[in-house]
């Protein structure tokens, strides 16, 4: 187990380096001159040169790469071309709402979807199963923003239970923080609940046909023990895989939800940075997302071995 974890962690280093190089190359190779954008339309040639020199854009590309990688290792992602604030602090100020939303969504998804799937798998084809699957199809087919606006209309405007929009930092009290997180979390989790419930259902149904389930019943185990202890754990690998993929796509999926509920998160920062061609910010965000993806994959890989001791790569 332990050497396996070390091996997986070490394996992330080359991946991250590759990502860093690709991110660097991608932005340098796209058309458009950051110096020109920064300087504005009526800047003179000398001004442009001046800006290029201070930003290091006049250096050979390899030099720029090494300077950039060195700064990266020191935790320096550069300075925003637009606002002049360091990228690290820009991301830092935006990361809390996104992480809160993502975590809440994952937790809600797991709490709701896994039991839903197991219940449906208990008697496939029966009423309960069909009900669960109908909800799941709805979760799939209704877009997040539609769910979001519906929730706002019903629960905020009509009933007044929740605030319409906005975010309250956790430092200002846990009550308002959670209160404002409820609607975006429900809206965002719809599709993931549908996905995970479906996977849970089908992999539990598969496992229920296995011989060891029969052995468990022959021991005199209760049906709930059979389902949770024997079936679910064996069905865990595909479920964990899908949750992992879900979390990864969640990070990008928050863009819409953050817009609908006006949350000052990373999703909106992405949109702003792209529209303004703010290279350092875009680079920083891509790196952050890639790092998250790698981290999620690592977690999923390690979870595999927790659930299934046979897995050793």
């Amino acid at each position, binding site marked *: 187990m332990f050497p396996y974890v070390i091996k997986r962690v070490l394996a992330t280093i080359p991946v991250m380096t590759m990502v860093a190089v690709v991110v660097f190359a991608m932005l340098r190779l796209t058309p458009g001159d950051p110096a020109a954008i920064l300087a504005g339309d009526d800047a003179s040639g000398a001004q442009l040169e001046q800006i290029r020199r201070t930003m290091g854009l006049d250096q050979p590309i390899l030099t720029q790469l090494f300077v950039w990688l060195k700064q990266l290792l020191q935790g320096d992602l550069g300075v925003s071309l637009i606002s002049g604030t360091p990228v690290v602090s820009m991301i830092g100020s935006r990361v809390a709402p996104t992480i809160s939303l993502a975590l809440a969504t994952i937790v809600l998804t797991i709490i709701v979807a896994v039991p839903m799937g197991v219940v449906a798998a208990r008697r496939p084809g029966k009423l309960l199963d069909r009900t669960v699957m109908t909800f799941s199809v709805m979760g799939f087919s209704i877009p997040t923003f539609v769910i979001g606006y519906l929730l706002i209309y019903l629960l905020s405007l009509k009933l007044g239970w929740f605030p319409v929009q906005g975010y309250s930092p956790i430092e200002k009290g846990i009550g308002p923080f959670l209160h404002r997180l409820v609607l975006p979390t429900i809206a965002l989790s719809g599709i993931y609940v549908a996905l995970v419930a479906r996977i849970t259902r089908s992999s539990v149904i598969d496992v229920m046909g296995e011989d060891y389930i029969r052995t468990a019943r*022959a021991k005199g185990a209760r049906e709930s023990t059979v389902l949770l202890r024997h079936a679910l754990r064996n069905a865990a690998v595909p479920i964990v895989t899908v949750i992992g993929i879900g979390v990864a796509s969640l990070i990008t999926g928050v863009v819409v939800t953050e817009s609908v509920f006006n949350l000052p998160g990373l999703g909106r920062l992405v949109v702003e940075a792209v529209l303004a061609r703010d290279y350092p910010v875009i680079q920083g965000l891509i790196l952050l997302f890639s790092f998250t993806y790698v981290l999620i994959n690592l977690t999923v890989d390690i979870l595999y071995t927790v659930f299934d001791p*046979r897995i050793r790569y």
Partner: protein
Amino acid sequence: MTNPKKDGGNANGQPVLDVRNLDVSLVGAGQTRVVRDVSLTVNPGETVCVVGESGSGKSVTAFSIMGLLSSEALRCTSGSILLQGENVLEASAERLRDLRATTMAMVFQEPMTALNPVETVGDQIDEVLRIHRKELGKRERRQRVMAMLESVHLPDPERIYNSYPNQLSGGQRQRVVICIALILEPKLLIADEPTTALDVTTQRQILLLIRELQEKHNTAVLFITHDFGVVADIADRVVVMNRGEVVEMGPRDQILAEPAEDYTRMLVSSVPSLVPDTRAENRNEIVLSVKELGKTYSEKGFLKRRRDVAAAVDINLTLRRGEILGVVGESGSGKSTLARCVVRLQDPTSGEVVICGENIAALRGQTLQAMRKRVQMVFQDPYRSLNPRLTVGDSITEGLTNFGVSRDAALARARELMTLVGLSPDVLQRFPHQFSGGQRQRLCIARALALEPDVLVADEAVSALDVSVQAQVLALLDDIREKTGVGVLFITHDLRVAAQICDTIMVMQNGRMVEFGAAADVLTAPVRPTRAPCSTQRPAAIGTSSISALYERQRYAADFRHPHPQRDDHRRHRRRALRRGHRHRRRPHHADGRPSRCQGRARDRRQWPGGSARLHRRPYA
């Protein structure tokens, strides 16, 4: 009752299990009855064998008793199942759970899949105690599990306790399943083909273990099997089932020696003899020769030392046109590795595989591709070796079209092949699930023959089939060998099968070839020095012949058979001589002076198959 000792157990003398007029039907429109009017009893300490072919309803009966039928598919519609007088068909779900493992327990056919792969086996045995003996503390439970692991003769119980099922062998897993079944000393043990999936050595050990534990606790055993060797070895009484009905029932010796029903006679006599017919020496040209073949698997791990496992070492053999060469050995002896190297599904580490004069051991890419049609393979499991989404016709013609034959010509060839393997040409449009196991194996053989190979490798090709179907498929292979002249490399662990079909036999043990010779020689006089196949050098000799060990283990299975006086008087003598040589492992008497069951059994056996005159007649032609 053949077993007179019926002390202990039940005070009022009632049977542990009393099944009365049981009907089990498919749920749904037709309500077809798959078990009809079955009645049987099992007394304390008694072993009742239920025999029959696949689909005879014997397993369904067993699962009905445990209440483990899938309620969506099968339902007990009438009759009763009395377990110590209590009708389990009327028991509540909760009561049924209480009875399982405490009063009745079950050992399953497939030890490889019967255990939960993600829990340690210790936990899985412990679970029985956690469910039914809630009063026990953690330490007490652990002690009892350890004691149970020891009582099934598992080595190093401490290690086994913490192992996952995938770290254990099939035999070890079956022992663990037996632990789960017997830890609470149930009154009734139902064993559903518990040895079928195991190799012969392990089979024997598991049977002995079940009997030992049965004696210790006076357990009633209902033993489901299709193997008459097992019946001869352990049964007190036998229940023969066919198509959901009990055909015949009676004491073991009566059923085996004087079966009343034709069906029983058919079953008993379809068990093949261990003694092969002598065959003329084959002088055709050599189609396959393997020279000093070696295969080593390497395991390399991070922070771990490299580990090499030699699966095959220095294998030499020759196969002539029209010859069937049997490769026999136990699980893990390297037979399958050899087969896979010969067809180049695996790359041999050293040595040569010469097919029709060309060494394919090191070929790559296009040249290897071209040689592939010279050697074809038939796999063990006909249920899984055909693509379920392709029609049979597509599966069979695929190889031909890969080698550039037009679709029409390929289909014409497929129709010919269907006739050759004894199926109608119309079936080409169907899908594999529409066929029985035996038919599927015929299809697999047809597929392998489509490219007119010079060498056919059959890897345990009949092991998954019923005995009577086995005989048909073997006859087909023999027929095909005659018609097409294909050389067959026949891999099997079953000497009875090998005896039926093979001209020459090679014995493997621990990856090495230990004996090689004409089938009649190897099987009947195993201790003789072996003949080396293609060199004068003798293969690595070992102290006592490995085949004699195999033979000893498998011979018991053939013992009960009726000798065929007209044909093989000599066989009987030889068998008797062999039997005299090493039999009767003496067991100590019970403390209370009862003779042990084994001794009684040995005495029985001495009397019947070889000796008494009444057995000399052939029961049917």
